[in-house]
């Protein structure tokens, strides 16, 4: 939450934790067909694919490098997607890492995702936390309230559930929420201000 403070501070007083991009300049690319609500909080270099819906009060913060979100993702209220490197990787002078988020991912209400790489067809259930050392591949489900912090790579179709973060392997990938996205694309513009798409295909 310190990032809110950063915006209000004068530039020369921003504490530098190895940030490579200028936080005060946002460069948001919204592809046509995406639905990004005005009240959402987008910081840094973010590309949002077509068909993706970003609800109001969702925050996407590209702190360590650009974030590229694929198609037909559903990012619900109070979701925090933060691109933040672990402490030991911050001072490396390599090229800026890019957080790639695949397609058909669902970020449910109040989940907190800091993962460095996210595949497709994943579901992050409400109030879950995925730390910045956890790589998520395809078709995973992170259950409600689960906290993943240890360094690991979730294999395909992994399901994490319960208070003890038990794991099991799913048979199928979770169904894409096309119906929900369809409804929202009709409903949301009626009640919210939508950011205009600024990129052409």
């Amino acid at each position, binding site marked *: 939450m310190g990032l809110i403070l950063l915006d209000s501070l004068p530039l020369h007083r921003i504490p530098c934790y190895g940030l490579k991009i200028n936080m005060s300049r946002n460069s948001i690319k919204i592809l046509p067909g995406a639905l990004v609500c005005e009240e959402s909080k987008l910081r840094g270099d973010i590309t949002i694919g077509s068909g993706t819906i970003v609800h109001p009060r969702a925050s996407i913060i590209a702190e360590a490098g650009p974030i590229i979100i694929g198609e037909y993702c559903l990012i619900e209220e109070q979701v925090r997607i933060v691109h933040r490197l672990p402490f030991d990787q911050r001072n490396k002078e390599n090229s800026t890492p890019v957080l790639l988020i695949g397609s058909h991912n669902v970020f449910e209400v109040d989940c907190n995702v800091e993962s460095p790489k996210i595949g497709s067809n994943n579901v992050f259930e409400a109030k879950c936390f995925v730390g910045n050392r956890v790589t998520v591949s395809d078709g995973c489900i992170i259950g409600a309230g689960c906290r993943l912090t240890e360094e690991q790579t979730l294999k395909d179709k992994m*399901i994490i559930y319960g208070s003890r973060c*038990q*794991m099991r392997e799913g*048979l199928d990938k979770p169904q894409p929420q096309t119906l929900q996205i369809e409804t929202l694309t009709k409903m949301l513009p009626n009640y919210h201000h939508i950011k205009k798409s600024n990129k052409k295909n």
Partner: protein
Amino acid sequence: MSYIITPDIVRYACTCGLLKPISNLYFCRYCTQLRCSFCVCHEVDTNFCGKCSENIPSSEARVKKNRCGNCYICPCCEQELSTRIASTKTLSDTEDTKTTPKKMYYLSCQFCRWSSRDVGIPDQSTVTGGWPERENVHANQLQELVDMYKAIVLAQKQQQEKDKKKQRGKYLSYTDRTGVTAAALRKRIGLPAELTHPLLRSKPKEPEPAVAKTEVEKLPIELFTEPINLMDITTVDQRLLQPEAQPTTVDKLFPVHKQLSIKRTLRCKSCEHNVSKPEYNPSSVKFKIQLFAYYHIPEVRIVTVEPLRAGQSCELILKFTNPSQHQTTITILELNLEQQEVEEAEVAPSFDNMENLSLQEKQQMSLPSMLSQPSSLMSMSTRSPTITVKPRKISENVNCDVDVPSSTFILPPRDDAAEYDDSGDTHNIQDDTKLVKWRKSNKAYVKLNVTPKEDLGLNSDVVCGFTMQHVYTNTITGQMDKKEPQKYDHKVKVFLHLGKLVGSE
């Protein structure tokens, strides 16, 4: 409602001597005594399924092994499974005339996303039931054992009856007078002459005993060579959920029938009146009888405590709430744990008189008087002598003195509409301003001075206690032709955990 989840800071001494928070206590109006879950009889009222809210008679529940026939729980995470519709078109049919999409149903867990398809259970065409039941491999052997033990029980019963008959025969032998032997008499009626029952003669059939093998299967070498895939192996919880199958791999997890829940009736052991009786309907959460202490005994809560220092007096503010519909007067008395021992000693001789009670009843009296046998059995067999529970000594290390106030205070009755009453507190109660700091409707905030003992170490828990005497108005009418509500002085010992001792300034 925080007192339900917070640690037990304020505890009341039950009549049996155990300390419980007020939310766990009952109050028997007929004995005017506190009762805890150990001093009441627990009787199963109804069996029901928590998912489909269906009432299941106890006989049926026993046949179904206390499980619901229609509802399942997830074998993976023990949550309830829900039925989902899969409108798969019957593509497998080669004839194109059958194009109507058939609704198929499968079970799925909303929590861990387990589904009946995971283990290859075919989808069903009906919403409820029809799910394949797995046969227990040992079903036959278990049935044999059950049959054998049933036969043994029967044989023993008959043996006992026979012994009784023999004893009676010593004194009542009419056959001697009439000259007709019992065997002859039986023959005349048309019964076989032999007295012994056929079941008695034929010894219960013993099942084949298990045979120990000298040769066992070799340990599969794969155990050491192959890497384990933890995703395929079930957890201990999952195995114990199905004790009859104990699946070792995930693909053998099959849905489990949901266990039934019960509604209990609680009955005071001394007077056999109900202290809690739920409504019969499973979906109702109301009670027919609910004599919870929370509705009768004034509730004590800690508002503030000054930092506790050994040997120094500090201020403690307590909130007293009157839950009843009658005005009550509260007197704070000294907690006298030594006196309790004297009382016990007086009580003890009366137990000698009960030596002629049967052994079974004595066992019930012994503490802790947990009910180990089915309560219905007990209440049927020994209805007349009520069970008196000898109170045990309160084992609480009280290390803080309470300055007992000389005056008493009044708590007005509870008024549900008081919240909406803007006229302010109209009651004119003359309070001892040193004792009662503030009051609002049926609540009073009382200041007490407590002194932790001198020899207490730093960070040790400070516990104080007092006896709260309150006027209890008994509204049971028709008792001994007394129409006026009876008033009693009821005493409760209250123990407060005040927190840790801090160092001196």
